[in-house]
């Protein structure tokens, strides 16, 4: 058994309204930051999976992402493999 670490990105689907992204853009004026556009706000989920090999682990993550982490009706998701220690920090 090996431990693999993944990051699942869940973003609002294209064409789906992203209220958070719009609110962020709307408030940028107050921060005097220019040139920022097309802000989309989603989720990032990091997790470890213990499995016999990488593809088995990946299989588990794909199921988790598709069935629990993302709502397929309004969100799209993608998986990224992290080095075992790694985190976004």
């Amino acid at each position, binding site marked *: 058994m090996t431990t693999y670490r993944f990051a699942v990105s869940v973003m609002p689907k294209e*064409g*789906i*309204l992203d209220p958070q992204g719009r609110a962020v853009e709307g408030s940028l004026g107050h921060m005097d930051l220019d040139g920022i556009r097309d802000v989309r706000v989603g989720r990032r989920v990091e997790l470890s999976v213990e499995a016999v090999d990488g593809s088995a682990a990946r299989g588990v993550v794909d199921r988790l992402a598709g069935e629990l982490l993302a*709502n397929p*009706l*309004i969100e799209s998701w993608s998986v990224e493999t992290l080095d075992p220690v790694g985190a976004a920090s």
Partner: protein
Amino acid sequence: MSLAEPPLHEVGDAPGGGEADLTPEPALHRALGLTDHELEEIRARLGRDPNDLELAMFSVMWSEHCSYKSSRSLLRTLPTAGEGVVAGPGENAGVVRIGDGLAVAFKLESHNHPSAVEPYQGAATGVGGILRDIFTMGARPIAILDALKFGDPADARTRHLVRGVVRGVGGYGNCVGVPTVGGELAFHPSYASNPLVNVMAVGLLDERDLTRAAAPGPGNLAVLFGSTTGRDGIGGASVLASATFGESHSADGAKRPTVQVGDPFAEKLLIEASLELIGERLLEGLQDLGAAGITCATSETADRAGTGIEVDLDAIPRRERGMAPFEVMISESQERMLAIVRPERLEAVLAICLRWGLPAAVVGRVTDDGDVTVVSRQGVGESGTPRELARIPARALTSEAIVYDREARPPTHIRRAPAPGAPELPHDGLPERGMDPGAVLVALLGDPNLCSRAWVTTQYDATVGTDTVEANERAAAVVRIKGSRKALVMATDANARIGLIDPYLGAVTAVAECARNVAVSGARPLGVTNCLNFGDPERPEEFWRLQEAVRGLGDACRALGLPVTGGNVSLYNESADGAIAPTTQIGIVGLLDDIEQRVGPAFRTAGDLVALLGETVPGLAGSIYAEHAGTAPDDRPPGVDLTREAALLAFLPEAATRGLLRSAQDVSGGGLAMALAECAMWGDIGADLRVSVASAPAAELFGEGPGRVVVTVAADHWGDLHALALRHELPLRRLGTVGGDRLRITLTGEGATGAAEGRGASVADEVDESLAVLRHAWQAGLPRALGKAG
């Protein structure tokens, strides 16, 4: 405060079902859901063939949802005239005067199918839609009530739906800052794959702010403000794309989400901006964008004013590039409003929208030709003259849309309810062997349909606005009106179990119960809104059910002198397992002239006398008890005596005004015993009571016969209360006194033990439970039913 955003997608069967996914067909009109006959009707109204864009506009406007083509003929039969009604059916919401220059706007609306597909967003956008109907009238929304119906709570799919819907209602209502003060939560197998999410909103307005959804004055401008327009909510019409630019439908469908995402923050800004625009007298008309988007808003406002509107397609602010004209015209993107503005006031209007951070644009102008026309410069360049993409008489899309007289046929073997005063059956024929009323009461208290709703209501902000006097776990909510002694009392009710047996009686029962719920607080009901949730009207049995329900709704409202001020119809609530139980959701708002005279449901003082107003009629069919015990084939639901209900509605406010009532609680689900338990639990004080059993203990204690109210009265007021009841020809039966920490109900009379034993049953002849036991059963019910219910 947050949690405005949806939670992680819940575990459970992947959401699905609900929406019909049209596959492209040779004939475009069929792919769009129009019949060949309807295409002929369209040709007749246009005097020519419609082009694709026009066909798309017709297809959404002639949908059941927008055109009411199956129900219109029935709705015409409803009584709509009433004292103080200033806006009725036909407007976005009903409006009734309440004195002091104020008026109340209220309406019920359904969002059933979207909630079945995506419970959080479906419920959230449902709240957003009904709120827009309220502030479109010029009223500030002051309360939300949510009536929710689901299948078996033990089912994983149901739990997923319950959690999503409740979070969605809260996520939206909490954020816009309108208190959710009441509603309904019911479970019935027929809702398993087709949950019902009916939301009622109530608003308060200064009569001078009453705003019409009309587009008067040719030359006036049509201003679209709020969110930008995207591809969402185009649904079935997306087949057009394949026709329009030969895209493959599948690739195309992927690009067009059928789920709409609500933005309560945008809605809050929309509320404030709209009310400011109205307050500043800057608008000639205002219309929310709901189903069929800009097409519906322009054609309805034009038709109401007998004008036309020319829509400048290129001027409509979009969320996405490359949208086809039909997509822009029928998009159901949320949180948008259409204002009709005089040119000289445009600047002021745009300034207010800008201040609230809302995109706004002039998207058209009012004309005198009675047509909705769509023009665009695309392809002809800035200089060129705009091309006319569509021209349709406004009324062809709205008031003169197609109407059907559907065939109605009563299903074989339906059980009719007895007419009021029909001879009683010898007994209700229920199995009573070994029945212990105390144990049954505890079981009923924990029943998912009767237990505490705290798990739901703690997720709703009920106190924002500093006007909420009574909310939740109550027959009706009480919301005071600042700066006056007045208060509004509101409730929503339906009865699926009886509706299933007899749709007529189901509707009558719901109206009677809802009105009673408002009246027990001492208020006078002002008007009725409703939501008719039924199956496929093209099936004669289903249409018959709808017809019977509307007949019952009309009869009940006429008998109680209540105008129907508005409502909504939701059809095709069906799944593989068949249609839902006929569900006539009723919403009533009442007026309390003096908040200090309101009457609560809870027992108050030891020594007060407990009495039952009204008479117990036999019949247990349709009751929760019957669901537990099983009904005999010859059993029927109790009938409704509307004359007596009317008397109750007159008696209760008078008794309250004269200060004769310490408490009053309506008898409904779970029957008399349940009502008594609630009075005791909520008052945290018990009672010692004797109930004489005329027919059978089950009917006395747990029968849900209408027309009954549990009241308490100070001993020295008993005489006056009794005299008043006599004057209103209402039976008033003394049951005992308030006191102690137990609920004790001793059964007496020939119907009790003895008689029951005569029938070979052995019935314990008393209920004797501590409040702690009752409260525990009541509070544990929902979390248990939903399985920890996180």
